[in-house]
């Protein structure tokens, strides 16, 4: 009984405190602003990397185009990249010391795809208390088609996220990290993963500031 009484007393003091604050400063304040930047039709140029495979690392230039339906949804109509691959020391060692055939290593040669961009996050950040930097973050959901060196073509489901930093109404910078779940590469597991990290210069046409 005592315990119940103590809890009730404690809660009542909290309620009283909340009421007192409400009486002193009733109401709430928000800053309502127009979005500083709005995207419309976006053309991307950039570079990316395939960092995950232990036998090679891929470095690629890429291009893409995105149509933004509104501030929350965009469609990456097309994207494509051609990868320049560099063997790792492990692969060299395998080939040299263990006579593993080069064809045993599956490599991404190029890929194309299309994605939906869901953009629920938009915000701003203070930089050195001097500038304001606007950004948005998005999720990526889409499909890709990979061309491998051995297994030829394989479809993939693309999942990822990215962040965009706005420079001005025409230019923004976009960093995407995505995981392509590739289906049916011959001679390998049925499902494998290709991680991509890409940095893009995004040119915006028709957007506002």
């Amino acid at each position, binding site marked *: 009984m005592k315990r119940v009484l103590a809890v009730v007393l404690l809660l009542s003091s909290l309620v009283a405190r909340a009421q007192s604050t409400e009486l002193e400063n009733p*109401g709430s304040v928000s800053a309502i602003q127009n979005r500083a930047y709005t995207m419309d039709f976006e053309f991307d140029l950039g570079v990316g990397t395939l960092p995950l495979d232990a036998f090679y690392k891929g470095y690629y230039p890429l291009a893409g185009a995105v149509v933004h339906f509104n501030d929350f949804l965009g469609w990456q109509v097309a994207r494509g990249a051609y990868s320049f691959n560099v063997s790792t020391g492990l692969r060299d060692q395998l080939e040299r010391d263990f006579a593993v055939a080069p064809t045993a290593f599956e490599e991404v040669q190029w890929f194309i795809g299309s994605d939906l961009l869901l953009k629920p996050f938009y915000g701003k950040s203070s930089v050195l208390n001097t500038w304001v930097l606007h950004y948005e973050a998005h999720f990526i959901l889409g499909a890709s088609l990979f061309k491998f060196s051995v297994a030829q073509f394989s479809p993939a489901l693309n999942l990822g996220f990215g962040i965009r930093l706005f420079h001005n109404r025409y230019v923004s910078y976009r960093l995407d990290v995505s995981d392509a779940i590739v289906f049916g590469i011959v001679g390998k597991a049925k499902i494998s993963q290709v991680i991509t990290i890409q940095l893009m210069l995004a040119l915006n046409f028709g957007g506002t500031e």
Partner: protein
Amino acid sequence: MKRLVWTTVVLAAAGAFGQGEKKAPVDPVTGEAAAPKQKEAAPEAKPAAAPAEAKAETRAEVVTATPQKMDLKFFDDALNDYFGGNPKSAAAKLFTFTENVAATDENYAWAQFFLARSLIELGLRHAGAVYLARIARERTNPQVLPKALATLQELTDLPHDEVLIDEQVFGALDLGFLPEDISGYAHYQQGLVDLRVGNERWANTHFSKLPEAGAEASRAKFALLVTRLKTLKRDVPKEVIDDFLELAKDEKLTQDARNDAILAVARLRYELKDYNGAFEAYNLVKLPALDPGRATLYLEEAWTRYNLGQIHAAMGILTTLDAPSFRDEFLPDKYLLRAFIYRDLCHYLPAKRAAKELTRRFADSIEAIREREDLTRDPRLLRAASSHGSTKRARKFLESLEFEGEQLGRYAGTFGERMFSYMTRLYDLARAEGTRVYDERLKNSVRAEADKLLRASEQVRLMEYEVGLKLYERVKKGSKLVALVEEPRLEGKQVSYRFVNEYWNDELRDYRFSLKSRCIEETAQ
């Protein structure tokens, strides 16, 4: 014959005595006996005597001193120092040169000009301005004059001696021989002087000579409109507002001046109770990116919105005025307006608290006013009074003199004792005069601020009385809350950042307050 000879001798002796008693020339800057034409070739050539001795020596020498023909090489050396980026050394040499040659020397005015430039480059702007003003007054070399005036005009962008430069130089120039850009500025200043003494016709004569494409013409229009407003007793004609509006769009004016013009439009419309028009005008004020803006602008906009019935937006702006950027602003009205808004929403206790906040916050100042103390000693009133208008300009000038006076000490060694003591006297006198002008202006403006505070504190009492009545008002049977005013919803392109006591400069104009009304319908039985 002997008698004639004696008479001649006596007359000659009397003449010589009279010459001996003739006053030494007075330095136009320090007002002391000038000792410019001594036989001193360079500051370091002869150590200075003790002050008392020096004075006596000076007087004695003035009688016999004749300007020395200085070696031209000395002047050339000084110029080489100046153009070689060594203004410190150049200033010392040029000072010696100007002190030792006659005013009729062909290089005298040039030496003064480069001495002024050197001093300005050393951060001693006022000393530089004094020499430039002297060139303008003496006019010994017509080639130097336009350059000196152009440099003086540049100095007017910063805190400067308004009497010396604006009134005594530009306000009194003979304008016939000046290049167009300088004469434009001089006409503008002379027009302003005429306006200040209430002679609009003469001012118009000067202003009519300003080139239409120049910034001065627009500034003159602004000055004329402001003066005309002061003379208007009742209704402001619409044309005056339109003229201000036109000026606000004038690209020749600086953004600050355009903002002043649009603020004038907003204030005039507010006075005419055209609140929508006033609000539109306030929205036309353009601030640089991330500039916090002016507190008075926000407060006026808040009153306008309040009068338009947009009390939530008005309260949002009052939140802005609590930002650290405006913490030191003297805005007694802010507390009253907040109290009005709470009262209108029937939150009576917060209304009372908001009103009392004014008397709490300004308790010391109100006490000082009631006790008839020296108001210039009250820090809040002092800060408020010296934060705008001519008092602010006088304060800024005084501060710049203090700073330059301190800077002067760094050059004591290079300047030599003679130049250093001359400059020290010059700054001491300027400081004394600057302090006098500042004190005089401060006295008037502090009184105006005290009046403002007293009026606001009277309003607080009324508010407390009104709120007291409302608090104990009987709620009638069947009373209902008044229909809530729908707050506007977020539009598609809008984003909302909840305020958590962190002020962002880019949000200062965008705060929106949300509070439901607790008022009861008046029609209840």
